[in-house]
């Protein structure tokens, strides 16, 4: 498929979806307060900006998200790499990870509140959990998959210390895997942002709950799209960086 065809079809799919939705609302088939058509979003956005909500909420969520993302990614990648490198560490975490991993980030909400109060830290903590596990496992797998022969080459050319091997072979070799883990975490983070704010921490999630209590469904939809936009932009930027870093791949 030519890239231009691909773009046309992708844009067409989204446009078709929005048009159908708009038509359902305009024709009266679906009552507009149950599902406000997309044409109600721009006015909703205008009023939210005018009243000062949108920028405050988006900024607050962006902050929780960024702290959670950096924290979860840093810890996940570091520990994942360490576990892959040291068999003893790997063995000691094997069961522990099995116990902790299946606990959904949202199940930590009570503890987040008890430990950190209704605070930004609590939201960032919850967001970081899901991101941590994704990066933990992808970084571990990425390091384990590094070509052992390349490590031998580096040793043969005089790089025998552990830090040298880490810097010259293991980390660059694991970079594609680690980066794809970071990207997956980027999406996972936005999914938990809203939930992490539902219990009263200022942000998009909190505003959505308020709006839905008032049956202001157009506002709810506005923030749903705001999240989609934020994710889209952050993912786009990440992919551009990723392409640069991995230019050596076919």
């Amino acid at each position, binding site marked *: 498929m030519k890239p231009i065809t691909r773009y046309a079809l992708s844009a067409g799919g989204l446009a078709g979806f929005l048009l159908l939705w708009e038509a359902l609302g305009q024709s009266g088939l679906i009552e507009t307060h149950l599902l406000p058509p997309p044409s109600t979003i721009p006015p909703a956005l205008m009023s939210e900006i005018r009243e000062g909500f949108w920028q405050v909420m988006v900024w607050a969520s962006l902050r929780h998200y960024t702290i959670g993302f950096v924290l979860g990614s840093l810890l996940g990648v570091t520990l994942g790499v360490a576990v892959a490198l040291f068999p003893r560490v790997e063995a000691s975490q094997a069961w522990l990870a099995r116990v902790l991993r299946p606990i959904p980030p949202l199940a930590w909400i009570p503890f987040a509140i008890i430990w950190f109060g209704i605070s930004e830290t609590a939201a960032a903590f919850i967001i970081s959990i899901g991101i941590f596990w994704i990066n933990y496992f992808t970084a571990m797998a990425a390091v384990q998959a590094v070509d052992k*022969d390349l490590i031998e080459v580096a040793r*043969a050319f*005089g790089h025998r210390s552990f830090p*040298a091997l880490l810097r010259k072979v293991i980390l660059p070799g694991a970079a594609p895997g680690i980066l794809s883990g970071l990207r997956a975490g980027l999406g996972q983070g936005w999914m938990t942002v809203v939930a992490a704010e539902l219990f009263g921490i200022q942000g998009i999630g909190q505003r959505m709950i308020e709006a839905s209590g008032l049956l202001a469904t157009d506002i709810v939809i506005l923030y749903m799209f705001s999240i989609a936009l934020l994710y889209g932009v952050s993912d786009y930027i990440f992919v551009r960086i990723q392409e640069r870093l991995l230019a050596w791949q076919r």
Partner: protein
Amino acid sequence: MATVIETRDLAVSFGGAGEAGIVFRHLNLAVEEGEIVTLVGVSGAGKSTLLRVIADLIPPHEGTVTVETPPDPARRPIAMVFQAALLMPWRKVADNITLGLEGIDVPDDVRRERVARTLELVGLSDYGDRWPYQLSGGQRQRIGIARALAVEPDILLMDEPFGALDAITRTALQDELLRIWRETGKSILFVTHDIEEAVYLGDRVLLLGDKPARIVNEYRVDIDRAARRESADFLHMVETVRGGLSDAMAIDNGAG
């Protein structure tokens, strides 16, 4: 001529107690300065292991390896060329060549100069800025050779470097290696399972027997290199080595 590599009663075994894990035992070989010694034997005979012991990548269980080279902080005494070129895919060609120069005392301008010179030696002067994936198999192996030459070693260890290449590329690279050898005067220990390659390249051909590996025979190749590929003496020598190899295998089978 001075001896540059000498192994004395070398023994290596992997795991297994007693005879089971022994790769070789009482292995003695010497490489003289400036000569090409080829090591030929059935696959699994421990040829690669022997190179790795000499390169100090695997410790021997018994015996010693002596590498006699003048010390020089800007060079490494030994460099290795691997069967698969094994370039670091995330480094451009020029940065692959400098791999062995990182960590030894080589200033930047000398580094650049060595990259240019080794690239020219292997005939890929314009390729420094490419990624490994953009090269053919033969080109990649040439860069593997350039990477080894860049540390200006006295000794090149080559582990079936042309084994994975097609016949035409392989022949071309054999001649190129001989040209580089004439221009640089390196001592080369070259492992192969291809008898013709062993006889074509070697001043001496060592025949490695199996289980445990030992040197069962040595052939001195006194045939003018310029005429070697076509001469009747060459074909005769190839047959002699081939005979020696099947004898060695017959002894192994009889004994085992």
